[in-house]
């Protein structure tokens, strides 16, 4: 997948959020139209009586003027001699010009006639507009409902995934709902469906969060981020497909420019047929990619020169070009692959050729940032990506880091050996097998075979249901939220806030260091911990049957010590153990008993 595609997708997602917004352009327009219609109705209501009055006045005046005009004209025409005599009699003292009066009367008449026509016209227009406005007002609720009906189902689906109600969405359903919006083209729909179904893999969640932020600047920043990304994309692959750079431009423009582009590409291909042969020969010889492979992918854009460049880069990075797939053959994927191989090696997992080859669909795709964060989480948790077979579980580092961290914490509270024996499972949906294991533990069911391997019913839901029925679903897993809530009542606010802060900042399960001034106290706390810990596995700490990931507990202790809160060692330990863990809230009581110097070591009844 190339940068342009990603940035295009981001633009489309922002556009989608615009469309799904409760004040989207259409809804806003409908509301504005209604407001305008209401204003018009009111204005016409005020104006109409005045117009009627004006029309009546005009009619009256016109009747009057018509009399003057006619009489003056008549006098002017028929009494010329008489008038002439009268005028002469008064010798200029008084002049009667009936023609002039007739002309003035006519002008006044015409003026009022025009005024009357205008008033009548205006009244007619008002009547027409009033009918339209009334129709707009009466249709508004339906129009709003229609628009809501169009966007609501998609909003509802999106809310489901962001609220965690569902793990993923049905792509066919999303596709159908996007079509109903009647806003996006086929190509655009194909591009955004996966992002909606899997929001964390396409940054849709962050786009969504930013978009819905109250801070208008944040909204602006999405635009600027996308714009920057577009610029970056344009800079990164300027020659590959010049037309795609238009992704920087508004979507409409891009659509207009797409068709001629395709034609151009085709022309080049026809002209350079011999080069195409050379390229295909090179692909097969250097990358082991056949014409059938390319056909199966629907073509390959890279030129011979680019392929040579990729090959050189791979060899320089000590990667056999034969391991790549067709989709790797673009600048971004080649760089991704090289970077990821380096990250794996730097963080303790050098990858052999076979591993790269079999995981090429991951290594050329997953971002180096995710890989680095995931490996850091795994390493600092005390876990390893090495399977018992000696192979590296590459698949585990494709998980969104926060999800991975939570999965590890969950497994540590239930049975961490699920991950130590099967590190590839760190990349799986772990809640269900964990719920099955917990159910087995609670009901004394052996969930491991004679060789210590997990029974298949742990992962196979169908098998599980056949054996145990509708029990042991993920609702039995203790919720960290409940545990944290209960802990809140046990600790001073400042300490609790400190834990939240430490948890938020600490994206990795970090190797935080204790300050020198707190070193002595740290050792005291570690001694207490040693005293109450019954776990034989160094990865976890077990207190009264409740398990916690050692690395997280240690990090929490250090954070609380460095925070200099006015709390005693026992309180530090209670917070450090329980906060963010997956033990039931009821565990707090037992842990307090274990921590209390007076009751420490005493057995709790009914355990």
């Amino acid at each position, binding site marked *: 997948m190339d940068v342009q595609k990603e940035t295009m997708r981001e633009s489309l997602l922002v556009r989608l959020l615009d469309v799904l917004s409760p004040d989207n352009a259409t809804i806003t327009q409908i509301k504005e139209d209604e407001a305008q219609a209401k204003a018009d109705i009111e204005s016409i209501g005020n104006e109409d009586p005045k117009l009627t009055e004006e029309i009546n006045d005009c009619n009256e005046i016109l009747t009057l003027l018509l009399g003057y005009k006619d009489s003056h004209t008549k006098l002017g025409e028929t009494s010329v001699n008489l008038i002439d005599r009268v005028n002469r009699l008064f010798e200029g003292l008084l002049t009667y010009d009936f023609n002039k009066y007739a002309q003035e009367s006519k002008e006044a008449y015409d003026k009022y006639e025009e005024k009357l026509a205008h008033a009548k016209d205006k009244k007619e227009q008002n009547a027409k507009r009033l009918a339209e406005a009334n129709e707009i007002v009466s249709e508004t609720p339906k129009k709003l409902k229609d628009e809501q009906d169009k966007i609501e189902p998609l909003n509802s689906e999106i809310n489901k995934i962001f609220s965690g109600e569902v793990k993923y969405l*049905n792509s066919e359903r999303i596709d159908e709902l996007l079509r109903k919006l009647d806003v996006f083209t086929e190509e655009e729909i194909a591009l955004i469906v996966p992002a909606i179904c899997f929001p964390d893999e396409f940054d849709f969640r962050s786009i969504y969060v930013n978009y819905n932020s109250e801070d208008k600047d944040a909204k602006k920043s999405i635009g600027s981020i996308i714009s920057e990304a577009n610029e970056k994309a344009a800079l990164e692959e300027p020659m590959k497909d010049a037309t795609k750079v238009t992704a920087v431009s508004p979507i409409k423009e891009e659509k207009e420019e797409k068709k001629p582009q395709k034609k151009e590409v085709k022309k080049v291909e026809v002209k350079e047929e011999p080069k195409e042969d050379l390229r295909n020969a090179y692909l097969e010889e250097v990358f082991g990619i056949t014409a059938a492979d390319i056909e199966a992918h629907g073509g390959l854009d890279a030129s011979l020169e680019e392929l040579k460049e990729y090959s050189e880069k791979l060899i320089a990075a000590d990667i056999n070009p034969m391991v790549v797939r067709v989709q790797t053959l673009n600048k971004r994927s080649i760089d991704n692959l090289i970077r990821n191989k380096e990250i794996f090696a730097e963080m303790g997992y050098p990858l052999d050729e076979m591993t790269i080859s079999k995981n090429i*669909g*991951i290594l050329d795709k997953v971002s180096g940032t995710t890989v680095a964060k995931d490996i850091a989480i795994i390493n600092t948790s005390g876990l390893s990506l090495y399977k018992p077979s000696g192979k590296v579980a590459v698949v585990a580092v494709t998980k969104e880091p926060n999800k991975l961290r939570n999965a590890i914490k969950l497994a540590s509270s239930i049975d961490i050996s699920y991950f130590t024996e099967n590190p590839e499972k760190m990349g799986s949906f772990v809640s269900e097998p964990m719920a099955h294991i917990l159910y087995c533990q609670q009901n004394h069911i052996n969930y491991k075979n004679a060789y210590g391997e997990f029974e298949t019913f742990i992962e196979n839901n169908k098998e599980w249901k056949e054996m145990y029925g509708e029990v042991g679903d993920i609702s039995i897993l203790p919720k960290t939220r409940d545990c944290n809530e209960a802990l809140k009542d046990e600790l001073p606010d400042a300490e609790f806030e400190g834990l939240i802060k430490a948890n938020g900042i600490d994206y990795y399960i970090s190797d935080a260091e204790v300050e020198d001034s707190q070193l002595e106290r740290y050792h005291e706390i570690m001694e207490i911990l040693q005293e109450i810990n019954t776990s034989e596995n160094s990865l976890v700490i077990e207190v009264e049957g409740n398990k916690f990931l050692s690395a997280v507990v240690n990090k929490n202790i250090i954070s609380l010590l460095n925070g200099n809160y006015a709390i005693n060692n026992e309180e530090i330990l209670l917070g450090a153990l329980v906060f963010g863990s997956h033990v039931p809230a009821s565990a707090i009581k037992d842990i307090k008993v274990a921590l209390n110097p007076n009751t420490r070591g005493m057995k709790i009844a009914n355990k």
Partner: protein
Amino acid sequence: MGFLKDLDFSKDEIIAAENNVTDLIINEILDSKEIVIHNINFLKDYGVENFKEVFINFCSMFLIDPSKFANIFTKYDKQDLINKIKNNVAIVEFL
């Protein structure tokens, strides 16, 4: 991964495959659906009876180009390989 229905996967098997990998891989599989279908069909036609189990356990491997995917399997004695995969799907990791 609804397209798996057309390849004889049951609803439970599809869920199992989806649960076994991250969203990123599911998305990549959807993006490269044609290749994945090609590779599943190859395995099925090659005679690997538990091809669905292979897919569920090694989803990301099916993103490899068809010729390279086929090479992984065809370099071994066909019947021997089919039997071994049938007995223990985990051996695919070592091919």
